[in-house]
């Protein structure tokens, strides 16, 4: 325990979260814990609490554990012991230091990547337990500042990045104009009712990666897809409220997304290369809204590109020459089983694909997902240092020839960017769409 307290002293949280913690009273903590455990958990939570036999076999699943020289404080069960177990054992009678430590563990030392679910003999969903902890922290108003700000943005603007209504339409039309230099009759159809596909993106795309909308437009137009994007709310499929435990806002954001699709009378939603958004639209958000599966079919970019390449709607003029290695994002591989389709796409696009080891469902997490990167710069160093095992994995792929790293997920992209720079791995990062755009046959080539 003294060890844990030392860590507490060393690790202050951001000032806003500290302010939140300073407002806590033992009564409030107990009330919130009782409320969440009693009203919001059930047989699943109880079964996980009663079944765990404390075998420690989940440890090696976690990149934080492996990256901290097997320090048991970072093992999945170790993190649950320091948070949920203790909370239940003490019946919610914990102090501010405990909550401070819980914030750090639940928000910055677990990516909710569910790799440990593959290692627990009982199939205990540790990420779910951590989400219960985050839900409690949310209700105590001690969610880290940056990700809380993102949740506020969702609440106010229905998108993640405070993008205003006119800015969104402006950005899309700007990219349309830009892309018309390349394909003169290119359109990014806004609000086109009855289209086959509604294409949705995450707010960072219009905010600072507008070229991805440009590339998507080129791909859609070349493939002759009947598509549209919403001009109003619902264009953003991202969802950080899901990770802060703010389920109510998660529900509102997802409802807006599905309602946009329904307003536009599309047959399906195709989403860009983002993992957490897929989790939100096709796993957590839909469930919160009472849909066991999404009310409108949701197709992730990997699957969409797979279909385009398989059906010949997109043809590759010249394959990407540099050897690539492929990162399997947790939310679309452990979350949606798209690993083989991702490999098909990679092999169609590139001359050589070097496998990371481990790969597919067993790939190491990027360290950024689960809202960890969204907790902001205060935790950047602990995030990159907490994932040295990923750097080793990348160095290994590099030693076998890889020069480019494909990460078909925004969070993974940003997290791997930090790891590649911090450890000087020297791999070039790409989305699939970057390579498709670079290598595909475009109309004027035809």
């Amino acid at each position: 325990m003294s060890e844990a307290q030392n860590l507490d002293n060393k690790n202050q949280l951001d000032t806003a979260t500290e302010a939140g913690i300073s407002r806590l009273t033992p009564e409030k903590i107990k009330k919130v814990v009782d409320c969440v455990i009693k009203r919001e958990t059930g047989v699943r939570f109880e079964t996980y609490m009663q079944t765990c036999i404390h075998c420690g076999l989940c440890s090696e699943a976690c990149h934080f554990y492996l990256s901290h020289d097997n320090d048991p404080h970072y093992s999945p069960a170790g993190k649950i012991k320091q948070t949920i177990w203790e909370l239940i054992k003490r019946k919610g009678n914990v102090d501010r230091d405990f909550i401070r430590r819980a914030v750090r563990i639940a928000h910055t030392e677990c990516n909710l990547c569910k790799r440990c679910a593959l290692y627990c003999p009982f199939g205990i969903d540790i990420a779910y337990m951590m989400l219960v902890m985050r839900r409690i922290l949310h209700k105590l108003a001690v969610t880290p500042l940056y990700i809380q700000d993102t949740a506020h943005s969702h609440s106010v603007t229905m998108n993640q990045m405070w993008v205003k209504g006119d800015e969104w339409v402006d950005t899309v039309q700007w990219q349309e104009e830009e892309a018309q230099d390349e394909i003169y009759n290119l359109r990014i159809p806004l609000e086109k009712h009855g289209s086959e596909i509604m294409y949705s993106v995450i707010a960072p795309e219009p905010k600072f990666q507008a070229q991805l909308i440009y590339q998507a437009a080129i791909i859609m137009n070349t493939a002759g897809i009947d598509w549209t994007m919403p001009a109003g709310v619902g264009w953003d499929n991202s969802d950080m409220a899901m990770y802060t435990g703010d389920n109510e806002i998660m529900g509102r954001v997802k409802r807006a997304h599905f309602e946009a699709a329904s307003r536009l009378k599309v047959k399906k939603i195709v989403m860009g290369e983002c993992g957490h958004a897929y989790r939100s639209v096709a796993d957590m958000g839909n469930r919160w809204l009472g849909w066991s599966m999404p009310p409108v079919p949701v197709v992730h970019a990997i699957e969409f590109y797979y279909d385009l390449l398989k059906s010949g709607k997109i043809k590759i003029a010249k394959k990407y020459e540099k050897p690539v290695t492929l990162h399997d994002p947790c939310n679309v591989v452990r979350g949606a089983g798209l690993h083989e389709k991702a490999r098909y796409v990679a092999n169609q696009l590139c001359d050589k694909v070097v496998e990371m080891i481990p790969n597919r469902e067993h790939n190491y997490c990027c360290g950024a997902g689960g809202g960890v990167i969204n907790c902001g710069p205060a935790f950047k160093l602990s995030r990159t240092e907490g994932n040295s095992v990923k750097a080793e994995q990348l160095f290994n792929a590099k030693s076998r020839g890889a020069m480019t790293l494909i990460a078909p997920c925004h969070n993974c992209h940003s997290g791997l960017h930090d790891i590649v720079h911090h450890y000087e791995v020297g791999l070039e990062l790409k989305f699939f769409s970057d390579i498709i755009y670079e290598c595909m046959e475009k109309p004027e080539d035809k």
Partner: protein
Amino acid sequence: MNVIYQFVAGPLAWAAFILFLSGIFLRMIQLFVKVNQPEKFLLHYFSLRYGLRSIIRWLTPFATTNWRKHPVFTVVTFIFHGCLLITPVFLSGHVVLIDEAWSLSWWTLPDGLADLMTLIVIGSCVFFGIRRIVRPEVRFVTDASDFILLVIVAAPFITGFLAYNQWFGATWMTIAHMLSGQILLAAIPFTRLNHIILFFFSRAYMGSEFGKVRHARDW
């Protein structure tokens, strides 16, 4: 001593079996009632096919990545659980008692083998205990209850082995054996030993989620 023997072999044995069976029964009822309350959706995702796929996979030694990562632990844990479940049921001494009481009998283990299997259970408990102390990642998540559970599991086998081999006072040892066995039975539904039952549910749920919803492997 006879009175104590009669009491332990009679009413107490009945009490232990009733606690064991009714405890498990009540746990199951509780499980099904609760799953129908706030988390009814869990049933919706349940899949017999993928649930069984996951259970069979994890009940097969070395069939999962994590079993392969820990070969010694895997061998010990599978042999331990096998011996733990098989030995008491097919022990000739136990079958004889049931035969005498209800004229029911079935195949029994050769005594030498039963002895060996008993020693394996005891040895495995020692192994698990040492592992809890030696391995930092296990020590960190271990508390006193884990050692108590190991003692509860090992005790009937230790006392049974001593009683059968007539070491120390055989009658006292037999009483101790019956008592410790009864404690073990009664403890199963009310401690984390109930993983014997809950394993199938948590495993099947995770298997269903991965197979039916996530289209990925959970091993």
